[in-house]
């Protein structure tokens, strides 16, 4: 069954990029050039819109067309089976003038390479909410789906998720310009080396990994604190929603399938009845239809679950940005504190008073004052230290301000995207429900007709 997906990301002009699929085997991202104002975008499920300032998607179409199983030796020289995904790129239909042409290309990537790309992006653009990858292992499953990573349904949904990831990155005003990303899409060989050569791994701060590391920030930014709480709440509620939804799906499956027993039993019963026989038999067929219909219904619902999951994983990215901000703020405060401390020391040295306990002060008291020469050299050293400290504070301050500014820009973009996407998801969920109800009405009306003929 072909899946409909909507991937959207937006910069401030709230444009949307949607994958529309109309029966083809491949998921194709169709990007047209139609403009849409924000009000209208609320009213359209399928927007065909282009990002202003997303040069990459202006130039090329991206899709993850296929998945294939491979076997090979891994890093510890053991045989393993894994899946690779085919990434296709080709020039967009309406390429703006002056843009460099892209040639159609295909290459294969495996999941771990996507993970590497994502990690690289996270480290390189710490102020950006990096789009999430589809889950590594199937979670929140209801009984029919298997949790096996090589299961074809899982692989298919992962393929869709990977494509979604690429589209989101490609339509982001900042991320889409990244050279490593471009390389990922266009050259199969040597990409891994290129990524590692950027040395991004050195930039990874171990404090970010640790969730429990509590950085005692004196003046936390209220906006970031609020965002972190929101992100945690969202994470909790979506997890719960996905769990309950899976259980509901499981139970609904049971209800529908048990009706299939009517089919069998009516058929047997009709054999012994003269007048009632025909009516019973045909009613039984409708019951079989009813029982079978749940498979498609629930498969469509998985798409809805995937949309929710994407935002569940997005909360990790949001939390990550908040944490980075916390770290920068912390370092700024540390630098400021350090500077203040040094200034204090200088003041004491100049005035000769000891307000703060220091070893030098103590030893001076015990062993007598130091000489003028010693004093002056110490003062010079402190001045230097203070100058460095001031530089550091200035640097950290700029870093912090830049971070807050760029991060908040992306956060606003993300918020709009989230509201739009989830609103669309909820709407399509309602539409699915209506469709399910219509099927139900059809079947039971037909069954009623059959009963009438009994």
């Amino acid at each position, binding site marked *: 069954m072909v899946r409909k997906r909507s991937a959207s990301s937006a910069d401030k002009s709230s444009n949307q990029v949607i994958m529309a699929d109309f029966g083809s085997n491949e998921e194709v991202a169709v990007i047209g050039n139609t403009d849409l104002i924000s009000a209208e975008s609320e009213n359209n499920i399928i927007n065909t819109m282009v990002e202003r300032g997303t040069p990459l998607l202006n130039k090329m179409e991206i899709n993850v067309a296929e998945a294939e199983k491979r076997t090979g030796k891994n890093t510890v020289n053991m045989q393993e089976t894994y899946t690779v995904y085919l990434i296709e790129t080709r020039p967009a239909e309406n390429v703006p003038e002056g843009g460099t042409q892209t040639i159609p290309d295909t290459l294969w990537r495996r999941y771990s390479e996507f993970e590497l790309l994502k990690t690289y992006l996270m480290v390189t653009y710490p102020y950006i909410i990096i789009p999430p990858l589809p889950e590594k292992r199937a979670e929140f499953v209801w009984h029919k789906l298997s949790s096996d990573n090589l299961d074809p349904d899982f692989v298919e949904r992962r393929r869709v998720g990977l494509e979604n990831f690429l589209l989101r990155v490609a339509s982001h005003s900042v991320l889409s310009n990244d050279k490593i990303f471009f390389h990922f899409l266009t050259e199969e060989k040597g990409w891994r080396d290129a990524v590692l050569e950027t040395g991004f791994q050195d930039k990874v701060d171990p404090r970010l990994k640790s969730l429990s590391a509590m950085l005692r920030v004196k003046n936390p930014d209220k906006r970031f604190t609020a965002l972190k709480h929101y992100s945690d709440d969202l994470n909790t509620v979506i997890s719960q929603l996905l769990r309950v939804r899976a259980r*509901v799906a499981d139970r609904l499956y049971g209800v529908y399938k048990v009706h299939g027993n009517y089919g069998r039993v009516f058929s047997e019963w009709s054999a012994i009845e003269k007048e009632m026989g025909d009516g019973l038999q045909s009613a039984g067929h409708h019951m079989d239809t009813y029982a079978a219909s749940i498979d498609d219904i629930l498969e469509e619902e998985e798409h809805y679950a995937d949309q929710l999951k994407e935002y569940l994983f997005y909360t990790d990215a949001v939390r990550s940005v908040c944490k980075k901000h916390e770290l920068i703020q912390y370092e700024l405060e540390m630098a400021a504190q350090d500077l203040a401390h040094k200034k204090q020391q200088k003041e004491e040295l100049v005035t000769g008073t000891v307000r703060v306990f220091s070893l030098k002060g103590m030893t001076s008291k015990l062993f007598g004052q130091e000489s003028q020469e010693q004093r002056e050299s110490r003062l010079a050293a402190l001045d230097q230290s203070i100058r460095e400290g001031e530089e550091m504070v200035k640097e950290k301050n700029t870093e912090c301000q830049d971070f807050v500014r760029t991060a908040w820009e992306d956060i606003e973009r993300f918020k709009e995207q989230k509201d739009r996407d989830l609103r669309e998801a909820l709407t399509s969920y309602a539409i699915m429900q209506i469709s399910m109800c*219509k099927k139900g009405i059809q079947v039971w009306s037909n069954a009623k007709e059959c*009963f009438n003929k009994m």
Partner: protein
Amino acid sequence: MSGQTVPADFSGHMLDLDEDEDLEVFSKNISLEDGNPMPNSPGSMVNQYRLEDDEEQQDPNTKDLFITVDKPESHVTAIETFIMYRVITKTTRGEFDSSEYEVRRRYQDFMWLRSRLEENHPTLIVHPLPEKFVMKGMMDRFNNDFIETRRRALHRFLNKISEHPILSYSECLKVFLTAEDLTAHRKQGAGFLSRMGETMKAVANSVRGLKSRPEEFTVMQEYVEDFGNKMSSVDRVAQRIAKEQREYLDELKQYGPTYTQWAGFEEELGDPLKGVASCVDRCSKETEEQVCHLSEVLIPTLHEYVLCSETLKAVMRRRDNIQAEFEAKNEALISRKADQETLQEEVDGLADRLEQANNALKGDWSYWKNSMTTDLKSAFISTAEKNVDYYEKYIAVAVGFLTCTHVCHDKFGVCVNI
């Protein structure tokens, strides 16, 4: 006492009965085709029946006996505690002294009524009572659901009897509906002991086996066996569906509130989330009604017909016994030389009895089949209608939600049809 012309389906003869029974004894010489009314009770009302293929057994316009069973109440004595049901009767029939009666009856009283009816009409199909004991589940006799289920079944039982062309005129039904204190009448079961004797004889006779059962009764017997099995299967399926729906409902009850919880900390998304929450809550409410409907309409009906199959088997057995008794006596007549006259008389009597029993069964068989078809058809139709209703209501809420969010769905092709 009322007389009646025999309905077209019956081939003319009614049951011969014991002398101490107060049911009408109809002459066996009357034939339908002559169109003669029954002469037996002068001054009695004559009710005409015509059983046509697709109509209700009793034309609602001529229905003149209305019974309801309600108001179960706990009744405590020194020895025991039991439930009494109120039985209200409204009638225009002449044989009733009054047009309205109200009495209180317990389950045992219903059992008495039914066993009298079966005794008096061994080859008529008397609708079954709800079970005496409840095996499964944690239900006990004083559980409200159990009492309500039983009350409905007792109500249906009496209505089935009141609609039956023959049973409805039984004296013991009248006594049941009107007597203040039934215990006096219940002790009057003089027939019981003689019935016991009859039964023993019947058993002894049937051990010898029937010479030849008429073909139509063999067909009936086979049908009855199969019918019992099929009914049990359908009943089981329906119960399983109810169980699955209950479990679905349990999960739904947690699902809606989660959306509401989410709406609590969203701004723009608050309304759509609340919209979906109300959809799910509506789904929940409608599912609850679906389960109720299943438990109150389809399942009890199916269950009654499962019990019916046992009734049918018993009727077939009794008919067989009557035949066996006749055959036994007949053989004795043929083999013995002495007592020819007395034996002949007895044999004639038994032959008559057999013929009446067979005819009664044949007639009641088609009545029962019609009744069964009507009941089951109506129960299934009702269930189908309920399900359609469920989906329609759910659609209404979902559409309401969509309208609120002002969404257009050309591409999905769904809204176009709404």
